[in-house]
């Protein structure tokens, strides 16, 4: 059984603040790009599932050849097989187009039990590609998995984090899950892993190599939505007023007065 992880190359979270609206959609955002931090949990979980239940971990990404960097990180962590999906025909796909491409790639890889994704990407933030892949594959989807309790040949028992509590749910396999950060502690790649990742070849798989891919469902022309008017959030204006007072009690009382006057209490 294969555990397939879908990952994305995204900006380093320290540098998200430096991304400029004019650069979005450009080939180079001008910031350091890394494996999406949410996806590290999914990669780690796939590796642990292989250790617990046997099988094989496969990592898949969609993007330009730069996206190889995301695959490299996963391989350095210990994933055996990596698939780069790259083709000009894929560019501009929305979440559902992306989900269709990934679903067809997953079908081609075959013998999949669980498909794992992170909660969301730190750039698109939608969390829609995971459920999209499940919908395209026609298999169950479980979001926010905090623990994989058990995996058998045809089922998985999972702990699903909801706002009000933890649910234990059993789904038929194959299935798609998104994992939450509570699920594990992602490992750091070791030297051997990094060397292996740097020596591995990452040939691109294009649209022509994905059987059943519907060209009408992918690319910018099929996108059902478009980001317009990209802008920075309104800057917080004004300087911070440091509240003075002869004592802590007086400072606190002065602050309380200010906040009551602001009508936020």
């Amino acid at each position, binding site marked *: 059984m294969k555990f397939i992880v879908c990952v994305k190359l995204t900006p380093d*979270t320290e540098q998200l603040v430096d991304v400029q609206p004019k650069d979005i959609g450009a080939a180079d955002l001008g910031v350091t790009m890394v494996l999406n931090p949410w996806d590290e949990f999914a990669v780690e979980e796939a590796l642990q599932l292989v250790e617990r239940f046997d099988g094989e971990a496969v990592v898949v990404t969609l993007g330009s050849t730069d996206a190889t960097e995301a695959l490299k990180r996963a391989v350095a962590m210990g994933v055996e097989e990596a698939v780069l999906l790259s083709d000009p025909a894929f560019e501009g796909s929305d979440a*559902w187009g992306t*989900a269709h491409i990934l679903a067809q790639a997953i079908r081609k890889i075959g013998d999949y039990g669980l498909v794992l994704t992170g909660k969301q990407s730190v750039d698109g933030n939608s969390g829609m590609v995971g459920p999209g892949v499940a919908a395209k594959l026609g298999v169950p989807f479980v979001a926010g998995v905090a623990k994989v309790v058990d995996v058998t040949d045809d089922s998985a028992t999972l702990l699903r984090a909801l706002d009000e509590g933890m649910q234990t749910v059993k789904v038929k396999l194959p299935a798609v899950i998104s994992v939450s950060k509570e699920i594990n502690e992602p490992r750091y790649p070791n030297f051997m892993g990094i060397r292996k990742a740097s020596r591995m070849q990452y040939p691109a798989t294009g649209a022509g190599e994905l059987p059943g891919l519907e060209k009408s469902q992918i690319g910018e022309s099929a996108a*059902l939505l478009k980001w317009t008017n990209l802008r920075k959030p309104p800057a917080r204006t004004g300087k*911070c007023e*440091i509240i003075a007072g002869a004592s802590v009690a007086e400072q606190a009382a002065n602050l309380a007065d*200010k*906040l009551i006057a602001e009508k936020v209490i």
Partner: protein
Amino acid sequence: MSSILVYIDHFGGATKPVSWEILGKARELAGKLGTPVTAFVAGQNLADLASEAIACGADKMLVADGPAFAQFNVQALVAAFKAAIEVAQPRIILVPATAGARDVAALVACSLNIGMAADCQGLDLDDAGNLLAERPVFSGNIITTVVFNGPIQMATVRARSFPLPAADSSRAGVIVPLVVSVPGDTEEVLSFEVTETGELAVENAGIIVSGGRGVKGPEGFAPIRDLAKVLGGAVGASRAAVDAGWIPYPHQVGQTGKSVRPDLYIACGISGAIQHLAGMSGAKVIVSINKDKDAPIFTVARYGIVGDLFDVVPALTTAFKAKLGR
């Protein structure tokens, strides 16, 4: 006839406030479009909730009621939501961006090929009556207005994006049972352990008192909780405090936690890492209490007190108790 369809999310019949917030917004948009508002809910024993939805702005309430919906079950909810869409024939669909509902929405939207914008915080209509959805991307560092290219437009919406509508019990509306055939058995809920403590969730709170590394330990959250209680607010935390195991993850505010938009955010012993600011800089008023006058949190705060939170926070609690008579 086309309509606006609103998904009402609840837990055991207790409606999540964001459901009413988006119902109120749907009412406003429907007024501009001249279309009715249809609401949808799935669960068990929902008669009270259905009447409340009418009072809050629904013209028609589609209710999928039965044991299949007693637990959160994606397969059952997807089937029910699809049935609701079939009945309502909506041009716009609004769904709370809550854990659970957001995934049901995405599964349904993808399988029906409906364009969807996630985690929106503003909604409007263009001249042709198409939805314009404002949402943060790049973890709150960029805002975009999503435009749609399709006849049906769906958005999931964050809590506190719109005010709660005033309930009007004299409003007329119809409650219609929704017949759903739940297919197959690919998903079985085995058990559910409630962890909800009755505390106000940060995403629904108008006031948040939040603690960071400076809180120093689990017991350090006691004064934070006391202040939150006096203010009727929620307790938040930075990633540092959550990773240290001082407070559970649902309290975490920031890029890897919740994004919040309270009226007042009081950051106690939080330095203000970029990742934390991404989750709370939408607050109307930010207050920082920190020993380090150079902490980055002071660059986004409107008010600050430079001092030890263990002195300042209890003093604030005392001050508010006296001034608010609580």
